[in-house]
């Protein structure tokens, strides 16, 4: 499904602040796999995701999505196959536009954006039906501006927008980190449902170790720009948060330093 080969990303190359954010990351993702990604501060989790999404260009290595080499493809072009939900709830939606307009923009992925009307009756019915599935009452607020929604509602909407045209890959960058615990749970449940129902392949960065083990089908741990732990199947099923931290410290030779992760 997706192959990442020897990916390397260096920030501030040649300057005193040079930092290797990704150091030879190689990873193969099977169809329908839901990978949770954990790691300390500055481990390279977000950088990896941004390289896949095309926000950053990698120095070395290739990214192949479903047989297409997307390493040098501009961000907007690969977005056709990649759905994204960001950590900041305000990043995934256009705040000054209505819910229906936001959905229409997301639904237009891969279609010509010409002078045809932005919204038609058929699309609206479809949006209403999809919003009903979120169970947040948004189906009655199609004409409300997104700026009026709460963080949780926006993340749920962004999730719907990211999957309304079925993507090959769904990228979730700590998309529940800015939410209060009950809302975070709701959004996580929605995430599970979307990934399951659409049979998506997904990458989810999280700082919640428990969530990393209970959600998805595979867990990778990153440290200093490398993948140091790759868990799936029975080994993963038998893991607890404690054994996971233990394994991490043995592998990394360092203490886990993600403050939020430890507090969470």
């Amino acid at each position, binding site marked *: 499904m997706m192959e990442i080969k020897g990916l390397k990303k260096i920030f501030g190359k040649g300057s005193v602040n040079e930092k290797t954010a990704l150091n030879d990351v190689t990873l193969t993702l099977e169809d329908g796999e839901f990978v949770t990604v954990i790691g300390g501060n500055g481990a390279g989790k977000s950088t990896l995701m941004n390289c896949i999404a095309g926000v950053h260009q990698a120095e070395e290595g290739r990214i192949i999505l479903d047989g297409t080499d997307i390493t040098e493809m*501009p961000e*907007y072009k690969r977005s*056709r196959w990649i759905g994204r939900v960001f950590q900041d709830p305000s990043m995934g939606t256009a705040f000054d*536009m209505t819910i229906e307009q936001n959905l229409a*923009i997301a639904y*237009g992925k891969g279609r010509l*954006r010409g*002078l*045809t009307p932005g*919204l038609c009756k058929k699309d609206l019915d479809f949006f209403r039906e999809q919003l009903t599935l979120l169970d947040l009452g948004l189906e009655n607020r199609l004409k409300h501006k997104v700026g009026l929604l709460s963080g949780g509602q926006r993340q749920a909407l962004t999730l719907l927008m990211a999957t309304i045209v079925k993507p090959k890959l769904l990228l979730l960058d700590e998309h529940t980190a800015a939410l209060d615990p009950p809302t975070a749970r709701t959004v996580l449940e929605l995430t599970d449902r979307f990934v399951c129902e659409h049979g998506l392949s997904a990458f989810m960065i999280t700082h919640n170790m428990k969530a990393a083990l209970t959600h998805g089908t595979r867990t990778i741990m990153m440290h200093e720009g490398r993948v140091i732990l790759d868990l799936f199947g029975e080994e993963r099923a038998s893991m607890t948060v404690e054994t996971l931290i233990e394994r991490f410290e043995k592998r990394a030779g360092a203490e886990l330093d993600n403050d939020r992760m430890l507090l969470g």
Partner: protein
Amino acid sequence: MLAAVGALELGLIYAVMALGVFLSFRTLNTPDLTVDGSFVLGAAFSAVICSGGGNPFFAVFAALIAGCLAGCVTALLNTKLEIQPLLAGILVMLGLYSINLRVMGGKANIPLNDEVTIFDIFAGTALEKYGELPVILIAVSLILILFYLFLQTRLGFALRATGDNEYMVRASGINTNRMKLIGMALANGFVAVSGAMIAQYQSYADVGMGLGMVVIGLASVIIGEVIFGTKTLLRRLIAVVLGAVLYRLVITYSLSRGLPAVDLKLISAVIVAVALSAGVIVRYVRKYVRRFAGTALGKKLVPAGFGVQRKKGGEGK
């Protein structure tokens, strides 16, 4: 009364320019200084074509194309060469000064004497007695409606979202650079059309007529928003038009009451500066009034509870 009608007519023509400023400043969220140059560019094309005996409608169309091209240059400087939008606009505005002079054949001023203009199409009909107003009303309404409809298309949605949140737009598979190109082109197209109409309305084009145009546009947008509201998109667009008219009426009235014409630009600049910073100014005033209210003299003078309703907690009193 006659002066008021003149102001109304001028205001409506400038409203087209203000709609262009609205598109760049509000919709795309980029202040575009190209306007000062593209306005004259439109006027220059219009005057040259009309004075050469050309079709006045073709003159406006040519101005539209020229304005769009000017906007494209600004957008490309910004997106492809990564020059800050403000600076890109300044560069194109400066460059356009020479181009405008070239278009005008090296002359700083082109008068239109008896040439046919777009305002003559109702000559010989019942509408003739209303002068230029019918043509202006039709033109502005048409542009307003077309602009509104455009913003409701898929392309229009993508354009609007680009000014709102570029991340989301790219994540939705839209090329934000192309959106900026289309938006800037269209914005300056509007501005040039306005310039073209002004040239035919005033019967001349002058190379200096664009000075401060962007500020007038901003003033119109802001006055419109404050007075007529921003509730829906259509209302916002109408507000821009009314804002432009109101601005022109106020200026005309002030001039008629003895305001020296030399001070006009200064006053426009002050109006926009105050309008842009109104929120901050209110905050300062509240802060100092609250501080003053704490003093012995203030306790007597300031009514209790003044400025409290918007106070964010944690002030300790």
